[in-house]
């Protein structure tokens, strides 16, 4: 195994770092935050069939779909000739759990090694992996990132709600673009205005609530699942757009929930396995901070009254306890059943569980928990959709349509006995 190239501090000046397309709204803001620290990043948007083909060529077929797409997208970008391989680096996230996902960076390196040995691969993680070869973050950057996650979540929520009911087609998108731009500039500028969360929240809420909407009733469809497939339009065949075109309102749980889930994991494990460490203590403090921030957002949204706030994280944890132990921490772990239950309770009775074909944790936390959640919420429809390079859109959409037909049938799914 040859030694791979490391990303040195000098490269900050010369190299452009490519970023995979997972959460377009959030990632744009992250990129402008890292720009303040001197990293030049570019969000990839290439999504032709060549992405999948490159993935198939470079990744073991049994590796999961997100790995295949992320790596395929990078390879396709490098092959396009748009980026000088001598001045390009790649960025990939690592969660550091017991899932295969922590290995993506290695799979990516193997793929890059063959054709572009000079291209360094960087890790973005919060678990101390890949020391010396990951994005370095100081406290100010972390603080900005937290805000970007919260703002991104709020934008995503408002946008999905507005565009499902907008009277003038495209108006919500304009609003979204305006805000993403404005926030990116805010993070890039030196002033600390981004810290004034309450003001920003209210501005966003007021702006989006000014978009004229109809008052028709639409089926609300929740999307849970593996984090990449859940959010990335490339991976889920533009699931949100499809739902909109079917006359539904997509309800997508926020990224902050996943961030807090990761933070909780550390001290939960410490408790379960008698293993309290310095880092588990730090995570507990970090979680407290995040939770306070989330509560603030919830309160602002409640007071504003137009848009539905995210689920209180402690409430999510208590819902999880009904179905599964919070010790289930690989992949999206206990968060998936918790989100499904929370959606059901808040009246979102149609839930799509989006997962890569053959995803290991999802056997347990998604397919494995559906029955228990349905027993408690007889009116809920849960459909598991597998995503895979070979799975066709027709097949996926037909199953979603079945769920929607179910939803429209009066009396369906109400168990009497």
């Amino acid at each position, binding site marked *: 195994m040859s030694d791979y190239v490391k990303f040195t501090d000098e490269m900050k000046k010369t190299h452009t770092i490519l970023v995979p397309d997972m959460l377009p709204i959030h990632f744009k803001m992250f990129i402008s935050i890292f720009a303040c620290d001197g990293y030049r990043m570019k969000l990839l948007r290439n999504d032709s069939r060549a992405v999948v083909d490159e993935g198939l060529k470079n990744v073991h077929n*049994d*590796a999961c779909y997100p790995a295949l797409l992320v790596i395929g997208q990078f390879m396709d970008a490098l092959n396009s000739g748009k980026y000088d391989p001598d001045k390009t680096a790649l960025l990939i996230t690592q969660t550091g759990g017991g899932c295969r996902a922590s290995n993506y960076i290695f799979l990516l390196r193997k793929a890059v090694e063959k054709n572009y040995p000079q291209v360094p691969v960087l890790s973005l993680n919060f678990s101390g992996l890949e020391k010396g070869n990951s994005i370095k973050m100081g406290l100010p950057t972390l603080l900005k990132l937290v805000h970007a996650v919260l703002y991104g979540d709020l934008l995503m929520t408002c946008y999905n709600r507005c565009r499902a009911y907008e009277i003038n087609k495209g108006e919500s998108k304009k609003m979204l673009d305006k805000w993403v731009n404005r926030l990116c500039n805010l993070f890039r500028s030196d002033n600390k205005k981004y810290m004034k969360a309450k003001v920003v929240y209210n501005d966003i809420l007021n702006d989006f609530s000014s978009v004229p909407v109809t008052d028709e009733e639409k089926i609300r469809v929740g999307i849970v699942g593996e984090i990449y497939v859940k959010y990335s339009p490339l991976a889920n065949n533009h699931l949100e757009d499809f739902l909109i075109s079917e006359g539904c309102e997509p309800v997508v749980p926020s990224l902050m929930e996943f961030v807090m889930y990761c933070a909780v994991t550390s001290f939960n494990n410490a408790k379960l396995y008698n293993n309290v460490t310095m880092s588990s203590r730090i995570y507990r403090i970090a979680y407290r901070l995040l939770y306070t921030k989330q509560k603030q957002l919830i309160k602002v949204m409640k007071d504003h009254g137009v848009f539905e706030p995210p689920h209180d994280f402690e409430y999510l944890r208590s819902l999880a306890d009904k179905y599964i*132990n919070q010790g289930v921490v*690989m992949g999206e772990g206990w968060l998936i059943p918790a989100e499904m239950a929370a959606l059901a309770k808040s009246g979102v009775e149609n839930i799509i569980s989006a997962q890569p074909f*053959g995803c290991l944790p999802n056997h347990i936390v998604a397919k494995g928990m559906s*029955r228990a959640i349905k027993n408690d919420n007889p009116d809920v429809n849960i459909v598991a959709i597998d995503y895979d390079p*070979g799975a066709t859109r027709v097949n996926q959409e037909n199953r979603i349509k079945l769920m929607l037909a179910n939803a429209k049938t009066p009396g369906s799914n109400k168990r009497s006995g």
Partner: protein
Amino acid sequence: MSKKYSLGIDVGSTTVKTVIIDGENNIIYSEYQRHFSKVKETVTAQLELISESFPGDEFSVCITGSAGLGLANSAEIPFVQEVHAAFLAVKEKQPDADAVIELGGEDAKMIFLTGGVEQRMNGSCAGGTGAFIDQMATLLGMTSDKLDELSLHAEKVYPIASRCGVFAKSDIQPLLNQGARREDIAASIFQAVVDQTVSGLAQGRSIEGKVLFLGGPLFFLKGLRNAFVKTLGLDEEHAVFPEEAPVFVAYGCALYAASSGDTFTISRICEKIRNAHASDSIVTGEPLFASHAEYDEFIERHKKFDLGYADIHTYKGDAYLGIDAGSTTTKLVLITDDGRILYHHYSSNMGQPLDRIAEQLRRIYSEMNPDITIRGSAVTGYGEDLIRSGLSVDHGIVETVAHFKAASYFCPEVDFIIDIGGQDIKCFRIKNHTIDSIMLNEACSSGCGSFIQTFAMAMGYDIAEFSQLGLFAKHPVDLGSRCTVFMNSSVKQAQKDGATVEDISAGLSSSIIKNAIYKVIRAKSPDELGKNIVVQGGTFLNDAVLRSFEKELGRNVIRPAISGLMGAFGCALYAKEHCTESSLISAEELEDFSYVSRSAQCHGCTANCQLNIISFGGGKRFISGNRCEKGSGTAKKNNVPDLYEYKYNSIINMNNGQPKNPIATVGLPLALSFYEQMPFWQTLFTQIGFRTILSDESSRGMYYLGQHTIPSDTVCYPAKLTHGHIENLLDKGADLIFYPCMSYNIDEGGSDNHFNCPVVAYYPELLLANNTRLSEKNFIHPYMDLNNRKNVIRVLANSLKRFNIKGRIPAAVDTAYAALEKYHRDVTDKAAAIVAQARAEHRNIIVLAGRPYHIDKEINHGIHKLITSLGMAVITEDSVAHLAQTPKLGVLNQWTYHSRLYRAAEYVTTQPDMQLIQLVSFGCGIDAVTGDEVRAILESCGKLYTQLKIDEINNLGAARIRLRSLVAAMQQA
């Protein structure tokens, strides 16, 4: 004013159905027709027929069906999901039905009506219903009607994997080749469809009351109906097969249409459909040939690799016979002393290889010049053993050896051979004139050559015609490179999007090639394959496939003109090299040659193998289906040492120190991590004062026992078996079942982390959530970390609180740790003894590397016995891992079980007489990471890498070929 009618159009994956209803919801017209993938044409043709009877009438209209979605969208006609349409129809026609089962061309659906309406559909991986039956019928060389008729005369049913069509096929193929009765196979196919539907869709909800059966297959196939009725235990009154079953969904669709507003004349609807624009979302590639000149050059180039021919009627002298009894085809070659062909034959074996070959031999004997002497004969392929014993063929050789021989004849410097046959892809890399590595397709992507054939037939072409069509396709479609089931739906989508048959034909050729290169060979660049590449196998006779391969690689390859006969030719060459006196069945003996086949059960051990016994005249017989030599009828004791057997027996016989007055009975499932940690838990609970019981040994029956509680179809087989063990423990009267959740396994050092895989770590959560017999009270599944004694004691005290035994725990835990350590020591000691014995006996040693639970006989299907029957000793990965340091890895080494693989592989590289075989359970995503890494460790030191993928499939055919090839390669090295 004209009457108000409603029209429902159901466009399924294979058929188009139209129904017209009047204002009172009566069916006044219906039609059912196969569309052979010409969706638009068939629909418009049907509509034109209708317009003759209903000119000028206004219709409200709606489309349904899996292939109808795109059509409806682009023609701007309302669409209703097909399960929902069925639901509406049932409500109208059979309001008292309790459940509905509908099988379509490619989908299976189930609707529960009473006790909570639920509409369900098979997942994307559970393909194989109507299309599956068609495919199986093709495999048997008959129509599905004939299959149906045969099934009615079945005497027994074989277990056939019911999860997916491809799997079932791998179960059926060996049955065919072993000569099982076709009647029985036919019935088994239907039973598999029933099992799949019931387990996949009902998922634990019982199908009771009045059940309505819908869809084409259930209407037309009596055998299938019988199988459903019998399995569900229904009487005549409760199993309803409505007359209008084939058009039932179209009827529901018409009902849905009736509730909508807009109406049109038929000619207007026709026009809408005709003008529907296909979406432009299909991805296409370059044409295979830019011009006819390029094609001519291609044909010329490949003509060079042909053999000479000699006339069988006039030639005098010695001749050699080679037979390749493949999975779907029979190949036979008779050559002269100097390698010219006297006779050759290539045909489908129609599921009866022995008859086909005997028939060909009779022809040879009758045509051949009396001055020809057949000096030697050899056979290879799936049917090798059967043919060899039936027709007294001199030699049986491994396919890999046969192909290598043949390829070297054409290209002595060959670097790489790729053979794509009916069901297999075999690739060998050659280094220093020996086979260096072998790659075979996994059971999952089996549908290679036979797939394209089945597809051609489904589209109404013969294979030659179909592939010829692809040669000059302008825009070959990209269909992906996954398994058959996915390819089917990719094709469906491409058709919907307006791809032509030509484009699809070319696309399929390219898919086969991509599958071979990227999935089987896992090549990263064409250079890896070397300079001299020989391609062979029947599938490469297809010019479109050959051209796709050259295009994908970007270089020319050698295709011998006898591409499809290479295995047989290699056999003939082998026979020539090893000729003595031929024992081949003579012309006279062949006159009275006949055989009788019957089935029986072996009672040699608990595996109870299903045997198939073929008796030839003169007391000669051939037995197949046995996993070990016990059932072969030629029992001789196998003394080759085997650590799998030893470990297995130590675990299942674990029953020490049961207390006299037990507090309660604790059940420990014989599954997943327990295959390693049983010494710990068994000791722990007996020390505390509990009686322990283990679940019984795994079997297919055990799997069925828990099948109804499995929520995820695609999880690995070892996990799925766990469900049966839980049921078994409850049946055996366990007061409580103990099954801990563990994110972490024991840290053995030398790795980045020591996780369990997600399935092993958290499976208890899934069991509890899906088995209604389990509760927090009788199913104790605490989270703990065995690395931390304090944690174990605290957690146990907590979860066993109600028994009031807190004080006994610390001592019991210590004893348990000691027991686990003793077990590990015992295993490594035994391994050392086995290695010593093997070396004294000059045996090769195989490290059969998997996970602890791979010692389960139902999981490994007796592969270790197969290895020892080849004279090699077997040890395990955990017994040698401690003997080596972790090598430098290109991956994150974070799972305890998998970390052992790396160290074991590293150790093997230092031992000249050892080889490693990796056992991989289908669906194990983690082995996608470890497999490549273990291969890299081994190959960097010149060792062979062999991976065997296993699932519920009982068929060891592929494993046997790989193992024998490995032995052949080891002997050459």
